[in-house]
């Protein structure tokens, strides 16, 4: 039986280049060919669809410029702080609302309906409160991140097995012990899921704020590329950003033992 297992495992890579992989390669190739034909045809406005070569060159240029990593660090720092503040506040509020039915009925509706409103419209307020520097971007990221985390944690709290809570109480655990030893471990998946969605919206909030008013960060680089009409550079920025966003999203999902893509 053990041998069969080993055989199956060694056979797996060979079968992985199956019809699905071939179809994926074909789709990518066809898309790239269509793109290149469009770029060279002159049917579309010049530079709207730049050639793959120029995008590749811009990508290489972007990734080999040390200044790009400074901007990346600024954005990453803003998102990290936003996640920390928004995630923590969301978790605390979620635990309080999830643990108390009355409070949940009183206040959760506000979170539920305010959660999906477009957060970028709060940016003028954030500028007035926190200035034009990174503070306003962090604040917008925090605001974006808070709602999904709070709602996810509150829902997760209500789904905790009642037996676990009774066990904690029978051991006369304090509120802190209940949170640390029972609630948080039992809510691992809702918390990670909330953080994953929170990361996505914090990233969008922070970057959009950077495109609106900033002199550093990835959002600033994107809008700068637009302002000087450097389309290959804009594509390069977007490609790197999308890859990073999808990668971090998948990593958070994997860290929490979630299926990184289906859970959304």
């Amino acid at each position, binding site marked *: 039986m053990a041998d069969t297992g080993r055989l199956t495992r060694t056979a797996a890579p060979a079968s992985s280049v199956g019809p699905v992989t071939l179809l994926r390669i074909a789709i990518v190739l066809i898309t790239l060919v269509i793109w290149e034909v469009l770029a060279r045809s002159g049917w579309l406005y010049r530079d709207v669809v730049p050639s793959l070569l120029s995008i590749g060159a811009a990508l290489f240029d972007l990734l080999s410029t040390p200044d790009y990593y400074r901007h990346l660090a600024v954005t990453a720092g803003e998102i990290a702080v936003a996640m920390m503040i928004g995630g923590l506040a969301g978790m605390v509020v979620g635990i309080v609302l999830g643990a108390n039915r*009355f409070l949940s009925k009183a206040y959760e509706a506000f979170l539920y309906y*305010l959660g999906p409103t477009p957060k970028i419209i709060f940016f003028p307020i954030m500028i*007035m409160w926190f200035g034009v520097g990174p503070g306003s971007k962090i604040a917008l990221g925090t605001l974006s991140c808070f709602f999904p985390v709070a709602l996810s944690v509150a829902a997760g709290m209500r789904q905790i097995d009642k037996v676990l809570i009774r066990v904690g109480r029978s051991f006369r655990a304090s509120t802190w012990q209940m949170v640390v030893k029972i609630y948080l471990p039992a809510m691992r998946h809702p918390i990670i899921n909330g953080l994953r969605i929170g990361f996505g919206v914090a990233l969008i909030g922070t970057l959009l704020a950077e495109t609106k008013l900033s002199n550093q960060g990835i959002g600033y680089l994107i809008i700068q590329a637009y302002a000087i009409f450097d389309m290959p550079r804009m594509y390069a920025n977007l490609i790197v950003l999308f890859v990073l966003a999808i990668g971090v999203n998948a990593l958070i999902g994997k860290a929490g033992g979630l299926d990184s893509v289906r859970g959304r």
Partner: protein
Amino acid sequence: MPGGFFQQRYAPAAVGLGSLVLFFVFLEILIQTNLISRFIVPPPSEILESFERIIVEEGVIGRFFFTAQECLIASAMLIVFGIAGGVIIERYNLLRRACETWVAAAAAAPVVLAYPLFMVIFGRNMWTIIMMGFVAALPPVILKTIEGIAGTRKVLLNVGRSFNLTPMQMFWKIQFPAALPTIFTGVRLGLIFALINVVGVEFLINFGGLGQLINELAERYDLGGTYAAICFVILVSVLFFMSIEKAERWLIPVD
């Protein structure tokens, strides 16, 4: 008992609304006593007064209809292309296995950041806003359509087979109606994303309806007006979410 029922049902809502009113009263006092600068946060009474001004002078109703029109066009495109895309991907197993992960990955990508690109392609007009709303909201509709159709109960499919239904009949009479509640969940998510992106891009490119109004008022440093316009957008969003939620509940059959 009726008193108890009343308390159980309405007391939390009363506490929630009461706290909100108290918060605004407290804020008003703090601002009037100069503990919070009115040049950063205008008093709630001033925001209330500004509502009349933004309705009469800034044409907020007309702007609302402009944004609604953009949302409507984006939603129509979303429903047609999202559901059609989901059906096509689900229909061909190989295509589904190859593309479903990509669509899910696209849902995780911050597509709205591509708005400068859309401005280059479509220009600074309503089509940039509509297309941005449409593209950013497409993945959930496709994913939920795939999930809905693939999740059709086996017993229903067997009934269809026992009647010798053609694949087309099977789809229109069995699979599509059975998938409708799940598809609507995807459409609801899509509509929410579309609204968020439409208003967001209006604000960012300073064009269109409600989003542009907020940007203009903020640039004029009309604090009362900016806050009132933001409150108006929140109100519209909340009413929008409530109505599509009601529509979803109406559509999903009770077990």
